[in-house]
């Protein structure tokens, strides 16, 4: 049953500062932005929240900046992407195309133009779905999440952000304000496998970086995105693809659900590892 809109409350802060003040007073407020997940939950009656705080108008959370500004990571070489950056903005950004092409590839495969125009990177992280398409990319890119509350700011490495199924270290009074991506050395690779080539929720996603450091991250194969450290260590140490595939199967725990089976996902994850390694050689 759709929720009656008259029963829903919406706070509309005009600045990040006042948004953080509202959240510290009332941490039960649920932040919303592009609403591409929230409105689905409301319409199908799967979302319990009734009181929201709207971030969509906060331009402080927009923008893509490279280097400089001191905030963008060590030596000022990183990339800072505002939490409200939409997939369309990611696709159109020359600097992201150049430095994180796997993020552009993932953004292109998230919904159609209408969703890409509204969905935000911060929202994909906060929604914490195991099938969030940008999440394996951020794990493989060794990104950091910038969290801010009225009390201050902190940075969390991406692979320490999630603590379980749809659970993260973000406190109720904290907002994701930006995502920082360090320079990535090596070749990047992205592949989404769904029922169709477009407009389908993922059965499995794989993001990889083959460089001085090998990183592979896989989505939809566990309660949260998995950074396959052991399999990556096998490949980086000169091991065979078969040995890496065996290590990978110990690191992931795919389940049967409406979109696919655990067995299929296990096999496809191993296949994608081989394809990643072959393509980025």
């Amino acid at each position, binding site marked *: 049953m759709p929720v009656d809109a008259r029963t*829903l*409350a*919406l706070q509309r802060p005009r600045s990040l500062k006042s948004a953080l003040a509202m959240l510290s007073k009332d941490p039960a407020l649920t932040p919303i932005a592009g609403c591409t997940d929230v409105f689905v939950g409301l319409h199908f009656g799967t979302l319990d929240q009734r009181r929201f705080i709207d971030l969509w108008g906060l331009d402080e959370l927009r923008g893509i900046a490279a280097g400089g500004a001191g905030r963008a990571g060590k030596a000022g070489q990183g990339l800072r992407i505002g939490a409200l950056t939409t997939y369309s903005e990611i696709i159109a950004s020359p600097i992201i195309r150049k430095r994180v092409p796997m993020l552009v590839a993932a953004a292109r495969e998230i919904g*159609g133009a209408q969703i890409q125009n*509204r969905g935000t990177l911060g929202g994909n992280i906060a929604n914490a779905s195991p099938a969030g398409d940008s999440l394996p990319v951020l794990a493989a890119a060794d990104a950091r999440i910038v969290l801010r509350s009225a009390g201050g700011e902190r940075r969390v490495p991406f692979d320490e952000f999630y603590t379980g199924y749809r659970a993260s270290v973000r406190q109720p009074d904290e907002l994701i304000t930006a995502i920082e991506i360090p320079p990535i050395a090596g070749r990047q690779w992205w592949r989404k496998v769904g029922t169709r080539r477009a407009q389908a929720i993922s059965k499995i996603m794989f993001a990889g970086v083959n460089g001085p450091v090998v990183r592979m991250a896989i989505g939809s194969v566990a309660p949260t995105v998995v950074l396959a450290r052991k399999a990556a260590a096998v490949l980086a140490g000169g091991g065979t693809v078969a040995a890496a595939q065996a290590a990978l199967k110990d690191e992931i725990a795919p389940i049967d659900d409406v979109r696919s089976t655990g067995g299929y996902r296990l096999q496809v994850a191993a296949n994608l590892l081989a394809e990643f390694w072959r393509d980025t050689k």
Partner: protein
Amino acid sequence: MIVTINGKKRRLDVPPMARLLDVLREDCGLTGTKEGCGEGECGACTVLVDGVAVDSCLVPAAHVDGCKVVTVEGAAAAKRSARALQNAFVEHGGAQCGICTPGMIVAACTLKAGCSRDEIKRALAGNLCRCTGYISIFNSVEAALPPARKGPPSRLALRRANARARRR
């Protein structure tokens, strides 16, 4: 809340979390915008907000406060390209059952002159047709788009033309 809908300013008294789709259909009587899936998969409810295509089933009314919203009714009345699209859909069999058509037309309004087939497909990727008449829909859009306009030549083109003239 004040919204400009199809060029006309309207004062609306609606809940901030009402779906834009419902505001358009129920409060404004603009029933050209259709509800298909209600979850941002099908694109039947596509409208333009400040020129950007969105699924109106996923937009809270609060997000269009002070914005310009264009629905299929407004697109047809205000934009020559939308009229061309309508005619092309008739001529090339772009509509079968018709539920997806308003969304297709509005999404196609974001395309620039001289778009390639691939660009058309990408712009319409978020619009599903249950009759699966995609080829006819792409043909219709292609037929309606004006060819790329020739602007003044770029500096590079001028330099090359000059170099060719000197060689001669």
